[in-house]
């Protein structure tokens, strides 16, 4: 039996590496219930560590055995006593031993100062029981070594002892500036024009109270802004304070972000030890407290005290006591737990793809069918299929449905035609949905000749609804993803739509009717899909009206995505490349399946409303049959009660099945300090998150109310924020003021709102086809902030006179030129400019562009020879061309998501529509009825001053 000597506090894992004989036991551990009773062994060690406080009953007895048996202790019993003891002892100084009693001991750290720091940090929440004294005594030592752990002091540690002399120095080092948390800098917008570079500045720092976080690396314990960000990085304690500030409170969540090079994957907790709060069901996080000698933890959401699962301190891989403090869920903001069977309604299902291809005359003519089949063929290998379970079916449709039966063993596919579109049935019970690996040969064969098969098809209608129903029937028992490629307005069977485009009502209040679903079919079908865990992605190609608004409802409620290629024509290689890139990206995407998402928050906060692509299944549960990467959701939050805690936490949990057949829970934490000070509320506001949230709300308003109403609401919100700021934060108070003041960190908000007001999805105009509007709205509600911000506030670069290093490869990849404010003032007649919004890239060529410039970039003799429109830039052997190409390349790659911006060349005296389109992205200009930035700011100021007079 393990004697106390052997009881090493958790966390000396490194020393144990060499113990090979122990591995024998590991195999036995896997069957957890098998463990023999040497229970006392393991616990005895824990008890010993715990010291006097945990007296009698060994934890195993007190633990609730409901979930599973935690073999932690048991396994330990198998170990002989004491080997690593010596090395371990050496590492720690005497005063630390008592700390173990506190259960807060952090072994495994090289420097003892650290363990003590931790202890010190905990103290505010802890009655300084037994051990804490040692920790305090040692604290100054910890400050002596900030270099060793530069991150830790940045968060809270210095504040733990505010009187310390070193404090100011530390702040100085960190570049934080003043003593006061969150200093408010007021900027006058009338004198400081917006600078696009400010959007790249990270949101205001999150300054948690000392000791809030268990992890040494507090920066990792809080979610990155790209994954989870809040509009306010300091939460007001009362609803009235929030109301006073007028800033909307909400979260912007991108739970499943793709990985860029150099980013580490979300750590996976594989041992299925999932510590959750008994009351609020929150997961354990770096912000909980361990109490009662480490045997219990206090939930940071509801303050409930919970037992720590027995096996929490056990390293199941090595089969030895583990280091609690090294556990991923206590150190990382985002973790994935491997979920045991309690989290499954059914066994994890394989990924299923049903691809519906429109093969009507229009589709074939546009080359969509050929491009699609080629892309699918090329991407068969990229479809996630690690466990060879992935299933795929291909269904074609025009006015009838064409199924393809691919029996195992054969290399050929048989076509089965169903022309009864009113009551869809499957022509064959099996072999339509086939295993990707097994039916590979027949699939390749089929995809190879699909284009030819329908090359002569002259049928014009589209039975999209029946095709969707057929796809749904195929995958109904499993769930999965439907990729629907459609070129025309659906005309046959259920879900048929009428052309309701009417140029007369564009720009009138009735226009919002065109953005609502024309047929209830797409909503009710979406609900059915959501229930059966089916997600639908729409790829739409029509050159005529296709009712994108209605069709987009299906992806919207099934957490899919809409992709729109207006007037697609594969004969233009740019169109084909864009579509192939995006379809390939969707196929290759390792989607999450059968997902539900829930956001929990500390007491007093309530998730009030949800925006994004999902179906709200209960008051706070979002059903997402498939979670694509880089899709963003926004949630508005209400403050219901006064918050007394020093910090609050938001926890996003996404229960899902990976496309490799594993059930997992992704948990993302964000802890934010609270404040009762209005100036801190302003100083901590995150303009990017606010703009994202407002974009979501504005789009929703266009549908429930009207476009006009939505624009007004946006502007009113802005006026409210500015008035409130002026009244409470500036000397002008309620009176009129010659300035338009706002805090430094909200400086870009007006221009972002202006961009939003000028976005295709919301803009006041009688010229925007409803399809384009609907697509823009779909983008506005699903793009993560990183893509949304350029989408509403495009990047504008001057290329002809860019800095010499721009376009060359620097430390962080290709160096981009410095963005200019998007205003045509900056356009020069001899220049070359680039305007991009993440969806399209325009190269603007001035009419006096010198032939050399045209030659260098486009390989054409002169400006006259240049043609406007979609282009692919030739790669030439001159440095300028290569730099321009590099910048375009970088623009396409720098953001997450599958979107592939198309490149257009715009000549200053070229085609009118294209020119106007490009110019409409220069949002600081006056266009039509829309104000320029200066006018907008002046309007804003008048309103703010006017509002103050009431």
């Amino acid at each position, binding site marked *: 039996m393990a004697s106390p000597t052997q009881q090493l506090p958790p966390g000396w894992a490194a020393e144990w590496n060499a113990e090979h004989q122990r591995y024998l036991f590991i195999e036995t551990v896997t069957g957890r219930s098998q463990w023999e009773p040497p229970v006392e062994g393991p616990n005895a060690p824990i008890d010993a560590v715990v010291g006097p406080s945990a007296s009698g009953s060994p934890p195993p007895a007190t633990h609730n055995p409901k979930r599973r048996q935690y073999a932690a202790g048991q396994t330990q019993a198998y170990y002989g006593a004491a080997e690593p003891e010596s090395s371990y002892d050496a590492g720690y100084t005497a005063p630390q031993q008592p700390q173990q009693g506190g259960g807060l001991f952090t072994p495994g750290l090289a420097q003892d100062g650290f363990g003590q720091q931790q202890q010190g940090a905990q103290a505010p929440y802890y009655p300084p029981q037994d051990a804490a004294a040692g920790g305090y005594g040692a604290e100054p030592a910890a400050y002596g070594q900030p270099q060793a752990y530069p991150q830790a002091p940045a968060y809270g540690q210095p504040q733990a002892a505010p009187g310390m002399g070193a404090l100011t120095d530390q702040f100085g080092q960190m570049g934080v500036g003043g003593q006061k948390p969150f200093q408010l800098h007021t900027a006058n917008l009338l004198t400081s024009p917006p600078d696009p570079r400010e959007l790249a500045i990270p949101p205001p720092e999150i300054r948690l109270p000392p000791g809030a976080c268990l992890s040494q690396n507090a920066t990792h314990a809080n979610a990155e802004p790209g994954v989870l960000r809040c509009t306010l990085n300091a939460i007001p304690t009362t609803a009235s304070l929030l109301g006073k500030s007028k800033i909307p409170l909400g979260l912007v969540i991108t739970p499943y972000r793709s990985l860029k090079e150099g980013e580490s994957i979300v750590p996976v907790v594989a041992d299925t030890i999932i510590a959750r709060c008994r009351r609020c069901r929150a997961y354990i996080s770096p912000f909980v407290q361990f109490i009662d000698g480490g045997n219990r933890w206090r939930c940071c959401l509801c303050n409930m005290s919970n037992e720590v699962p027995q096996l929490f301190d056990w390293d199941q891989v090595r089969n030895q006591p583990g280091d609690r403090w090294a556990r991923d869920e206590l150190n990382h903001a985002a973790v994935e737990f491997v979920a045991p069977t309690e989290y499954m309604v059914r066994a994890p299902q394989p990924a299923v793809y049903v691809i519906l291809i429109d093969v009507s005359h229009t589709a074939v003519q546009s080359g969509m069918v050929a491009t699609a089949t080629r892309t699918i063929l090329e991407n068969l290998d990229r479809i996630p299929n690690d466990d060879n379970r992935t299933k795929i079916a291909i269904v074609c449709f025009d006015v009838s449905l064409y199924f393809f039966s691919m029996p195992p063993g054969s290399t050929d596919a048989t076509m089965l035609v169903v022309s009864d579109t009113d009551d869809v049935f499957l022509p064959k019970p099996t072999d339509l949905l086939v295993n990707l690996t097994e039916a590979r040969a027949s699939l390749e064969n089929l995809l190879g000749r699909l284009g030819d098969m329908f090359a002569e098809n002259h049928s014009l209608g589209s039975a999209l609804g029946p095709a969707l129903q057929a796809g749904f029937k195929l995958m109904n028992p499993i769930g999965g993803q439907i990729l629907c490629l459609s070129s025309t307005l659906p005309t046959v069977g259920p879900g048929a739509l009428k052309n309701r485009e009417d140029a007369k009502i564009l720009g009138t209040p009735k226009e919002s009717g065109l953005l609502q679903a024309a047929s209830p079919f797409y*909503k009710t079908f*979406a609900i059915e899909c959501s*229930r059966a865990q089916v997600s639908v992605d729409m790829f739409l190609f029509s050159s005529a009206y296709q009712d994108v608004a209605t069709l987009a409802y299906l992806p919207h409620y099934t957490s899919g995505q809409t992709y729109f290629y207006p007037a697609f024509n594969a004969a233009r290689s740019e169109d084909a490349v864009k579509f192939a890139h995006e379809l390939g990206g969707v196929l290759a995407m390792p989607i999450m399946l059968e997902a539900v998402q829930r956001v929990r928050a500390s007491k007093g906060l309530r998730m009030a*409303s949800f925006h994004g692509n999902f179906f*709200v*299944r*209960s*008051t706070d*549960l979002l059903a997402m049959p498939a979670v694509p990467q880089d899709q963003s959701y926004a949630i508005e939050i209400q403050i219901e009660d006064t918050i007394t805690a020093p910090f609050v936490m938001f926890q996003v949990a996404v229960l899902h099945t990976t496309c490799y057949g594993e059930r997992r829970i992704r948990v993302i934490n964000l802890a934010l300090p609270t404040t009762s000070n209005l100036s801190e509320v302003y100083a901590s506001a995150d303009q990017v998150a606010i703009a994202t949230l407002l974009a979501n709300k504005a789009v929703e308003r266009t549908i429930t109310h009207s476009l006009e109403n939505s624009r007004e609401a946006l502007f009113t919100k802005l006026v409210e924020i500015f008035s409130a700021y002026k009244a409470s934060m500036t000397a002008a108070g309620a009176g009129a003021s010659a300035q338009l003041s706002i805090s430094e960190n909200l400086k870009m908000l007006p221009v972002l709102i202006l961009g939003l007001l000028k976005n295709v999805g919301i803009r006041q105009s009688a010229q925007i086809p409803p399809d384009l509007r609907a697509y823009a709205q779909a983008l506005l509600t699903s793009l993560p902030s990183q893509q949304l911000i350029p989408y509403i506030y495009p990047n504008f670069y001057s290329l002809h006179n860019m800095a010499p290093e721009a376009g060359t490869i620097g430390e962080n990849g290709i160096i981009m030129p410095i963005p200019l404010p998007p205003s045509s003032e900056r356009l020069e007649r001899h220049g070359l400019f680039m305007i991009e919004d993440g969806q399209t890239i325009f190269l603007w060529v001035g009419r006096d562009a010198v032939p050399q410039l045209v030659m260098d970039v486009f390989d054409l003799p002169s400006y006259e020879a240049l043609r406007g429109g979609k282009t692919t830039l030739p790669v030439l052997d001159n440095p300028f061309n290569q730099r321009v190409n590099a910048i375009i390349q970088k623009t396409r790659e720098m953001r997450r998501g599958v979107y592939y911006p198309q490149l257009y060349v715009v000549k200053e005296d070229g085609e009118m529509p294209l020119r106007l389109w490009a110019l409409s992205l220069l949002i600081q200009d006056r266009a039509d009825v829309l104000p320029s930035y200066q006018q907008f700011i002046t309007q804003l100021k008048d309103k703010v001053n006017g509002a103050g007079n009431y």
Partner: protein
Amino acid sequence: MLGTGWLFLFAVLMAAGLLFTMVFFIIMFSDLECDYINPIDLCNKLNQFVFPENAAHAFLTLLFLLSGQWIAFLLNLPLVLFNANKIRNKNHMYDATEIFRTLSGHKTESFFKLGFYLLSFFYYLYRLIGGVRSMIVALISESE
């Protein structure tokens, strides 16, 4: 006068029925809030009752009109128009995808209807009693 008595007897029963429907609606909505029922089932269930409820109310109003009960008719007319307007705008059905956003609105509406039916129930009862009394008076006077 005999007809009036029967009419209001019928109206009282109808009002009671409508009253119960509204109570049922409100219970269902609060069930939804407490997560006892999912929005899809809720909408499927409630949508079955929307038309019968509107039709029953409209029928009752029509009866008042035909029997020349002007006060009762005018009392009910606004609600009939309100319902008709909702049907015309095609937003009379509960939509599972939006139910959470519109829940508070639906609840207030149901509460208002509940109150209305309750009041009208008592009004009909009053008229019923009045009708019965006058009937009795008539009978008595006849027998005399």
